């Protein structure tokens, strides 16, 4: 799975996610990536979010929307909301990662798997890593 989230100079956010799913999937299985609110979500009132990991759990947690709701309704910061969603996912057995940006230009990411490919760029900052 791949994904991107961005905030532009006007403070608008967007998210995109694309995937081939899981190896040897059967029966027309669809994961969280194309499900709006689960693996992909963007709302200028809170954040843009893209997810990767064990999709069934991200669907059940409505993970991407949950992150935005924790900010909008719960008053959490972007990183607090992201960490909270990952903790909630772990509590039901899900593993994976999230990336997110907020309309104010803040960015956050986190993952509960041993590995995650990720990168970030801004007007004055850049990093790319495979962890």
């Amino acid at each position, binding site marked *: 799975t791949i994904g*991107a989230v961005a905030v532009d100079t006007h403070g608008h956010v*967007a998210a995109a996610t694309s995937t081939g799913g*899981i190896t040897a999937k059967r029966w027309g299985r*669809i994961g969280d990536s194309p499900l709006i609110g689960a693996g992909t979500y963007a709302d200028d009132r809170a954040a*843009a979010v893209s997810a990767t990991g064990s999709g069934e759990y991200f669907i059940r947690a409505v993970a991407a929307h949950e992150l935005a709701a924790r900010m909008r309704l719960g008053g959490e910061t972007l990183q607090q909301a992201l960490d909270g969603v990952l903790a909630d996912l772990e509590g039901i057995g899900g593993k994976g990662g999230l990336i997110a940006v907020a309309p104010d230009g803040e960015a956050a990411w986190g993952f509960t798997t041993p590995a995650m490919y990720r990168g970030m*760029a801004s007007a004055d900052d850049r990093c790319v890593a*495979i962890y």
Partner: protein
Amino acid sequence: MTKWRIVIHGGAGSERIAHHDPTHEARALAGLNAALDAGAAILADGGSAVDAVEAAARVLEEDPCFNAGRGSVLTEDGVVELDAAIMDGRDRRAGAVAGLRTTRAPVTLARRLMEQGPHVFLAGVAADRFAAKAGIEQVGNDFFVLPERRRQLEEALAAGNDADPIKYG
């Protein structure tokens, strides 16, 4: 004016690099950098966040290092099925597609659906037909399939129920 920013991911997995190719890590890093370049160039020029995320995702869909577009994992039947979504935070417009087999750029189809389609979510062969009708490039399913992914499928099938579902995700 907000400081622009773009963040990308190329997946998360159960091993650091679940891959037999020793050059994979360097190629994956190059792919991530190329995706950042594509998105950052748009944002630095005052472009929109939705244009930036589509551009970055397209680079990663074309890069065989990642499980999206060309290089995707295989279903039990040995074919590639692709899913994608895009969402614009300005007005929460969204487009999503699932189970594509012949559309080269799934995220671009999702974008087209978001902007021009009457629905939010399309699936299966009919979604590929929608893409063809919209003039979005169609390719044979073999275009997406790499030998390494066939090996991984064989490994997963041999492991049966013990296979890790996100090992190559």
